[in-house]
């Protein structure tokens, strides 16, 4: 089972109040970059994958727990185990070099450098 979330980084309003889900995300905007904090408790670095395609950044993560053996008993099993995925549109011009990532205390921290498109140069046509 894969949980799938797709979002536009720039539309903040629709997801207010979605505070308790897995992969809950805060996005902070700076002049030159975005910073994303994504909750991934108990996920190891080896099981978190980032893909950038057509301006969409996808975070794919998975975790599992030890199977119980005879004589052991699971009394409560609420924590999500399996694969989850969430995508953010971050703009066509963004490349891998614009993104850095770290995972600390169950929070994936991403920095996405803003890609400022070059302004088309105005061409002055000389009139004779």
């Amino acid at each position: 089972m894969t949980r799938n979330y797709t979002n536009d980084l720039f539309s903040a309003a629709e997801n207010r109040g979605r505070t308790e889900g897995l992969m809950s995300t805060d996005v902070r905007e700076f002049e030159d970059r975005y910073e994303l904090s994504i909750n991934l408790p108990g996920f190891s670095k080896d099981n978190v994958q980032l893909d950038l395609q057509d301006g969409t950044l996808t975070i794919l993560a998975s975790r599992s727990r030890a199977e119980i053996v005879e004589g052991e008993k699971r009394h409560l099993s609420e924590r999500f185990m399996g694969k989850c995925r969430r995508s953010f549109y971050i703009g066509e011009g963004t490349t891998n070099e614009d993104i850095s990532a770290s995972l600390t205390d169950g929070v994936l921290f991403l920095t996405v450098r803003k890609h400022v498109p070059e302004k088309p140069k105005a061409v002055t046509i000389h009139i004779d």
Partner: protein
Amino acid sequence: MLFTNTFSDLYDTLFPEVRDPAPRRTNALMSTDITEYADRYELSMDLAGFSKENITAEVKEGVLTIHAKREAPAQENAEGKLIRSERFSGECRRSFTIGEDVEQDAIRAAFADGVLTLTIPKAAPKLPENRRIAIS
């Protein structure tokens, strides 16, 4: 949005089979697994983004209570402008009845990668005492 997500109070029992079957609380705040082994219970609770300093666990009268707090992020400051805010901030608390057949003084806690793990040793079973009744 005032008064939303400032405080969550969740109650549970270590033995959910004794209460009504509740819907699976996957994906919620403080999601918890409890596994029983021969000599102990292990409790794992998701607390992503909380720091160790802001988590407390205490046992009182057979009830284990975990309390955690995360400061609300500033909406706008030198640190940039918050344009999406989904992560929980505020205080949350959850209690579990652990009963008397555990070694309450020997509970160990660890916090790593946003997961709180409590190891709760079972108490050694009390052997029934042989009571000798004096015959008068």
